[in-house]
């Protein structure tokens, strides 16, 4: 089966709730696309979800985390065969003490190339190691998903890095997964090349409607938005714009339990401000547009850009990432490990990353920056960056969030740095300033005010001068690899004067 990139739905794109009868047809058609789709029975799926204790339901767990001001841990992880993947999930649960256990799907599954995934399973079994970069959840089907959930004592989330979530979501929810990471705007702009923004929004309207349908039958599922986007120096304001819009689109379909994710900037004050601003701005727009009853939680992710080769430097990023998330007041942190520079970690390294993070969270408990002037200034700045753009998007859509989003990307009003998608201008360029904050060196066509851009430019010119880099795209490129540089380069142990001798 080749990947059907464009969805077939013909009515014009709107943000309104999909009608029940239309949705029933969409589901029938969707589930018929691969043999394991026939394993999904909605009544049985509801029974399955109701049978899970609340500590294995992610919607309940996220509400508790926010109530108790906890910072939970969640890794990534997925292997190409059922046996390897089950062992991984158990190890992350028991040895890593993960609060949320993941299933990352492989990249063929993400692109709905299920025939290729099948070959990957066979090759992985033949060679006794995973050749796939995740678990082919659709190929294995509902019954295997159930067994994975039964093998752990935590809630499980699907991490699928895809703009094509419809079959994966159906099968995972039916098997007892209670969370799904992904959204129409964020993943389409970050993980696809040829899919239109409209196509991606439609696909996730399906998934959001599906999650809401479970809720209408008494089973609350956790939907989550990947605002980390391309993971490459995404400034908080751009992440939050997509959080607000994806949250609104989900709320329109009836979702009431929604997570918002951002990659760490690695600047403590900026990350804390981002978490606070994200929570406030999402609730502001949800309430303002008629959805006062949506629970939202904010998650930070360990550094998403290029990692250093050195294990010791990686360990610092992992530990500091736990510290940042805890002090920022994030409800959870998504972890990496010392193997990050080389790709997918062993289960042992992955579990170790979880424990390093957990210890850091413990040490950083109950520290808050709320009264710090720099923190307040940064929260204020993010608000001044986000509101004009969101208001423009809503204006362009004549009140319709979906339409406004599509038109805004066409116009470059919404833009994502380093996007692979050809429907995104990708003119906006971020860079790191002299103090370590992520700023915008070129706004592209995004409607930031002159006052806001003057702040960014002033800060970035200090960095350009200090490091003798031309102000402009070179500053953005230098910022892409900065964190992966050897620590001796970043922070030398030699005194400049010593050279004289």
């Amino acid at each position, binding site marked *: 089966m080749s990947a059907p990139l464009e969805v077939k739905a013909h009515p014009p794109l709107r943000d309104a709730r999909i009608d029940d009868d239309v949705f029933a047809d969409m589901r029938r058609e969707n589930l018929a696309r691969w043999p394991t789709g026939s394993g999904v029975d909605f009544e049985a799926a509801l029974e399955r979800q109701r049978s899970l204790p609340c500590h294995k339901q992610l919607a309940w767990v996220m509400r508790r985390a926010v109530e108790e001001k906890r910072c939970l841990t969640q890794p990534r992880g997925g292997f190409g065969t059922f046996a390897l993947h089950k062992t991984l999930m158990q190890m992350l649960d028991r040895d890593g003490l993960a609060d949320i256990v993941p299933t990352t799907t492989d990249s063929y599954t993400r692109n709905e190339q299920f025939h290729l995934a099948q*070959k990957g399973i066979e090759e992985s079994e033949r060679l006794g190691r995973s050749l796939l970069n995740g678990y082919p959840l659709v190929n294995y089907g509902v019954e295997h998903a159930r067994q994975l959930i039964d093998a752990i004592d935590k809630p499980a989330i699907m991490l699928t890095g895809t703009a094509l979530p419809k079959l994966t979501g159906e099968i995972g929810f039916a098997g007892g997964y209670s969370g799904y990471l992904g959204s129409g705007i964020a993943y389409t702009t970050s993980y696809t090349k*040829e899919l239109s923004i409209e196509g991606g929004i439609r696909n996730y309207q399906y998934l959001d409607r599906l999650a809401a349908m479970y809720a209408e039958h008494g089973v609350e599922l956790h939907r989550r938005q990947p605002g980390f986007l391309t993971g490459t120096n995404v400034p908080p304001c751009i992440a939050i714009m997509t959080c607000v819009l994806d949250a609104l689109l989900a709320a329109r379909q009836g979702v009431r339990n929604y997570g918002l994710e951002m990659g760490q900037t690695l600047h403590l004050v900026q990350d804390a401000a981002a978490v606070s601003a994200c929570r406030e701005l999402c609730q502001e727009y949800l309430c303002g547009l008629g959805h006062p009853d949506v629970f939202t939680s904010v998650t930070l992710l360990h550094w998403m850009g290029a990692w250093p080769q050195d294990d010791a430097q990686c360990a610092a990023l992992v530990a500091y990432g736990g510290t940042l998330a805890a002090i920022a007041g994030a409800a959870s942190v998504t972890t990496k490990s010392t193997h990050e520079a080389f*790709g*997918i970690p062993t289960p042992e390294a992955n579990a170790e990353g979880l424990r390093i993070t957990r210890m850091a969270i413990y040490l950083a408990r109950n520290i808050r920056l709320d009264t710090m002037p720099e923190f307040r200034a940064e929260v204020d700045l993010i608000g001044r960056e986000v509101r004009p753009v969101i208001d423009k998007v809503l204006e362009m859509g004549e009140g319709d969030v979906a339409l406004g989003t599509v038109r805004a990307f066409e116009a470059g009003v919404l833009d994502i740095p380093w996007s692979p998608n050809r429907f995104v201008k990708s003119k906006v360029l971020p860079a790191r300033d002299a103090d370590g904050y992520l700023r915008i060196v070129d706004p592209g066509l995004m409607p930031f005010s002159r006052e806001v851009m003057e702040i960014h430019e002033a800060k970035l010119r200090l960095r350009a001068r200090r490091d003798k880099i031309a102000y402009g795209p070179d500053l953005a490129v230098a910022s892409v690899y900065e964190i992966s540089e050897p620590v001796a380069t970043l922070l030398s142990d030699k005194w400049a004067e010593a050279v004289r001798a």
Partner: protein
Amino acid sequence: MTARTLVTGVIGSDTHIVGNRILAMALETAGYKVVSLGALTPAQEFIMAAVETAADAILVSSLYGQGELDCRGFRDLCIEAGLGDILLYVGGNLIVGKHPWPVVEKLFLDMGFDRAAPPGTRLETVLQWLERDFAARERGQRRAAE
């Protein structure tokens, strides 16, 4: 002499475009004509682009671990398309898991790639490889010695 043409992109179902885009910028700055195919590019598209543009080399990026599956048979596809001798590089996080680099390198050299670049390879290194390999080819060698 007219500028040499290089085809580059990210192979398979992989979206990691940033490094490849920066590489393309550096290659252009160095004077090469660069055909950038972007993320999520099937093997066949590299070869079609190389045929259409009479390219001198193909530089394949893969960051997501499934490069081993995606790159198998790449040289054979080149041979079928009449590009049997084209210079082939591959680079990135090429297979799942952390393995000693010589093991990974051998895997890809055995597939018919002329050079494989580990994670963290500098742009300057790639530029040097290209310069020396093209010079070696002028002398009738497959690629420059180490």
